[in-house]
C-alpha cells in the first residue's frame, strides 16, 4: 500500500516538475524570439527611415527654357569660352518679361540652380551646330524651389516663415501652369563631386576616393597580414615571444581607430612628409587598422586545415614551403579572403582616423590617383549632415544608402567566395 501511494505522490511531483520545465522551455524560446524580433524591427525601422528620407535626393525638378544660343554670347570658334550663364539668364528674362529692376532680376535668377548653365554648356560643346539656333532645354531649378515642389516646404505658411518667398511661388506657379516643370532622376548625385549647392552635390568624388583608399589598404595590408599569419601559424616556434606577439595582435584589433589616425599623422605626414588629405596616407592608416583584422581570421583559417594534409604532403617529400604554398594556403584561401573582405568593409566605413589626416575636407574634383586630394564616403556623409541647407538632409540619407549598398555588395562577395571555395572535412 505504501508503495502505491508513494508512486502516486512521485507521479504528482514528477508531473509538476515536468510542466515547470516545459514552461521554462517555452519562456526561453519566447525570449529568443522576442530578441530577434526586436533586433529585426529596429533594423527595419532604421533602414526604412533612411531610405524614406533619402528618396527626395534621387529626383530633382527641372524647368524647360527656350534658349536662343546667340553668337553674342557664344562664338562658334571657341564654344568652351562662351558666356552660358548669360544665355540662361537671358532666356529666363524672356520667360518673365514683367520682371524689371536689378534686384528683382537677381531674385529671379536664384530660382535656377547654379548648375543650369553647365547643362547648356555641355550640350553646346557636344553639338556646336546649335550655336545661332533656338534650343529648348531642361535646366535644374534651385534647391529651395525643388523642395517646395516636392512638398517639403509648406507653401501655405506666412511668407516670413518659409525659405521660398511669395514672388518665387508666383514664378514657380507660372512655370507650372505653362507645363514647363518636370521631375527627373538626379544624375548629379552620382556624376558630380562635392558642392555647396545641394542639387549639384554628388558622391562620385567620395566614392572614387574611397576606392583609391581601399586599394592602397588592400595592397599594403593583404600581403603583410597573410605573411604574418602564415609565419605565426605554420613556421614560428611556439614560445614566449610568439605568445606575446599573438596577445598584442589581438589587442591591436580592439584599439580605437582614432589612435591609428594620430599615428598616421605623426608618422606618415609629419615624419615622412606625405601629402595631407591623400588616399595614399588614408590607405596606409586604414591598412594598419585592418592588419590585425586580417591576421586573426587568416590564422584561424590555417588552424582549421586538418594536420593530415600537412603530414601527407610532408610524407611524399614536400618541403615546408611547398607544404604551405601548394597545399595549406590554397585550402585556407576562402577563409583568408572572407577575413580580408570583411576587414576592408570595416575600413570603408571608417571616418575617425581619416579626420586626423585631413580627409574630412571639401573637395570638388574627383581624385585621379592616390596622391590627389580626396575624401571618403563616410566623411562626405558627415560633412553633408552638417550643412545648413535643408536639401542636404535627403542628400545625407542618399549617401548612407550608397555606402550601405557598397558594404552589402562587398559582404555578399565575401559570402560568395566562402561558399564557392569552401571545403569541409
Amino acid at each position, binding site marked *: 500500500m505504501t508503495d502505491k501511494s508513494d508512486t502516486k505522490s512521485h507521479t504528482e511531483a514528477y508531473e509538476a516538475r515536468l510542466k515547470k520545465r516545459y514552461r521554462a522551455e517555452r519562456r526561453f524560446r519566447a525570449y529568443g524570439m522576442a530578441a530577434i524580433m526586436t533586433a529585426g524591427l529596429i533594423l527595419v525601422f532604421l533602414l526604412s527611415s533612411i531610405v524614406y528620407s533619402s528618396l527626395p535626393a534621387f529626383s530633382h525638378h527641372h524647368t524647360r527654357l527656350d534658349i536662343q544660343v546667340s553668337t553674342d554670347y557664344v562664338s562658334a570658334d571657341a564654344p568652351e569660352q562662351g558666356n552660358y550663364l548669360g544665355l540662361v539668364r537671358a532666356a529666363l528674362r524672356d520667360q518673365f518679361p514683367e520682371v524689371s529692376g536689378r*534686384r528683382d532680376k*537677381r531674385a529671379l535668377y*536664384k530660382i535656377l540652380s*547654379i548648375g543650369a548653365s553647365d547643362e547648356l554648356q555641355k550640350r553646346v560643346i557636344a553639338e556646336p551646330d546649335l550655336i545661332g539656333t533656338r534650343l529648348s532645354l531642361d535646366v535644374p531649378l534651385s534647391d529651395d524651389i525643388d523642395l517646395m515642389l516636392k512638398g517639403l*516646404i*509648406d507653401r501655405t*505658411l506666412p511668407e*516670413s*516663415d*518659409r*525659405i521660398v518667398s511669395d514672388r518665387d511661388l508666383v514664378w514657380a506657379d507660372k512655370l507650372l501652369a505653362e507645363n514647363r516643370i518636370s521631375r527627373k532622376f538626379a544624375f548629379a548625385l552620382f556624376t558630380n563631386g562635392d*558642392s*555647396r*549647392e545641394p542639387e549639384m552635390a554628388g558622391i562620385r568624388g567620395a566614392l572614387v576616393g574611397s576606392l583609391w583608399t581601399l586599394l*592602397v589598404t588592400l*595592397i*599594403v595590408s593583404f*600581403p*603583410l597580414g*597573410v*605573411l604574418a599569419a602564415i609565419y605565426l601559424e605554420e613556421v614560428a616556434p611556439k614560445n614566449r615571444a610568439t605568445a606575446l606577439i599573438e596577445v598584442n595582435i589581438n589587442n591591436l584589433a580592439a584599439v580605437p581607430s582614432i589612435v591609428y589616425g594620430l599615428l598616421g599623422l605623426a608618422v606618415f*605626414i609629419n615624419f*615622412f*612628409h*606625405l*601629402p*595631407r*588629405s591623400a588616399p*595614399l596616407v588614408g590607405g596606409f592608416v586604414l591598412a594598419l587598422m585592418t592588419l590585425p583584422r586580417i591576421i586573426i581570421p587568416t590564422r584561424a583559417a590555417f588552424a582549421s586545415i586538418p594536420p593530415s594534409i600537412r603530414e601527407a604532403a610532408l610524407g611524399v617529400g614536400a618541403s615546408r*614551403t611547398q607544404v604551405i*604554398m601548394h597545399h595549406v594556403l590554397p585550402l585556407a584561401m576562402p577563409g583568408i579572403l572572407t577575413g580580408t573582405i570583411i576587414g576592408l568593409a570595416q575600413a570603408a566605413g571608417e571616418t575617425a582616423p581619416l579626420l586626423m589626416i*585631413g580627409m*574630412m*575636407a*571639401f*573637395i*570638388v*574634383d574627383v581624385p585621379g590617383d*592616390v*596622391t590627389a*586630394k580626396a575624401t571618403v564616403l563616410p566623411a562626405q556623409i558627415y*560633412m553633408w*549632415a*552638417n*550643412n*545648413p*541647407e*535643408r536639401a*542636404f*538632409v535627403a542628400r*545625407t540619407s542618399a549617401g548612407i544608402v550608397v555606402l550601405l549598398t557598397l558594404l552589402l555588395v562587398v559582404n555578399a562577395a565575401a559570402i560568395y567566395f566562402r561558399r564557392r571555395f569552401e571545403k569541409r572535412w
Partner: protein
Amino acid sequence: MNKFKTVLVQPILAMLIGVAMVSGAQARDQIEIVGSSTVFPFATSVAEQFGRTSKFKTPVVESTGSGGGLKLFCAGIGLEHPDITNASRRIKGKEFKNCQAKGIDITEIVVGFDGIVLAKAKGAPQLNLTRQQIYLATAKMVPNPDKPCQSNWCEPVKNPYMKWSDIDASLPDVKIEILGPPPTSGTRDAFQELAMSKGANKFPHMKKLKKADKSMWKKLTRTVREDGAWIDAGENDNLMVQKLSANPKAVGVFGFSFLDQNSDRLRGAIVEGIEPSFENIADGKYGISRSLYFYIKQAHVGTVPGISEFVAEFTSEKAFGEDGYLVDKGLIPLPASERQKYRNDGKNLTKLSM
C-alpha cells in the same frame, strides 16, 4: 617560390617605391584651407565659385576647428602647410607668437558676423530672455538666491533653477532643457563668452571678481551645468532642429544660419529685447554675435597660384557684400566701410601686428 614572389612581394616593393617617389617635395597648384567649422560653409561656397569662374583649381577646404586650423597654419612655411586658415574667433596672442616664431607673416580678414541664437519649436511660446537669465539657466554654479549678497561676494551654489519660471516669474513654467553644442565647438566657446560671461557680469560682484581673480571668474561664469538641464547635442545642427521640432519645451543653441534655413520650424528667443534677425545682427543690436575671420600666409602668395585671386573673390561685393551669395548661405555682412577696409587689406596683404 617564384609565384609567391610575384603575388606577395612585388606589390609591397611597388608601394614602397611609390612612397619614396611621392615623399619628395611636390609642387602644389591648389590652395589649401583649414580651420573653423563655422566659417567652413562660407569658405567652401567661395572655393566652389572660385573654381567655377577662374582658371585655378578649386581650393581644398578642411574643417579642423579654429584652434586646430591655426596650429596647422602656424606650423611653418612650405607647400606641405596650409595657405589660409579660417577662424570663428580672433587669433590669440599666443598663436600669433607661434606664427611669428616660424617667420610667418599673416594678413587678417574679417568676413562677416555670425549670430548665436536660442531657438524653440515654432508652436511653442517665444522666450524673452536677458543675458543674465541665460547665465542663470546654463551655468553650473550661480549666486545663492536665498542668501543676500555681500558687496563683493555672493556665495556660489550648485544651480538650483530647474524651471524657467524659477529664474523669473515672467518666464514660462516649463523645465529648463537646453540642447547645446559640445565643448569641442567654437559655437560653444562663443556662447560661453558672449552670453554666459556677459550675463554673469550683470552681477556687480562678478565684475569685481573678473579684475581680482580672472581664472576663478572664468570658472564660475563659463562652466556649463552638468545636471541634465544642458544636453550636449553633438555638432550636427540639423539633428538638433529635428529634436527641437519634436520637443516644444526644449531650447537649442546654434548658429543663425540654421535658424534662417528652418524659419518654418523654429523661432529664435528674444535676447535683451532684440529679436535674432538678419538686420539686428548686422547692425550689432543683437547681443550674442561674433566676427568670423580668415588668415592668409603671406609667404605663400605667389608660390601657390591663385591665393590673391581667391582672397579677391572672397572679399568681393558679390560674395561677402549685402546681396552676395554668402548672405544666402547665412553670413551676416560687415558694414560697407569695413568691407572696403578688408578688401584693401587683402589686396595689399596688410601685415597683422599684435
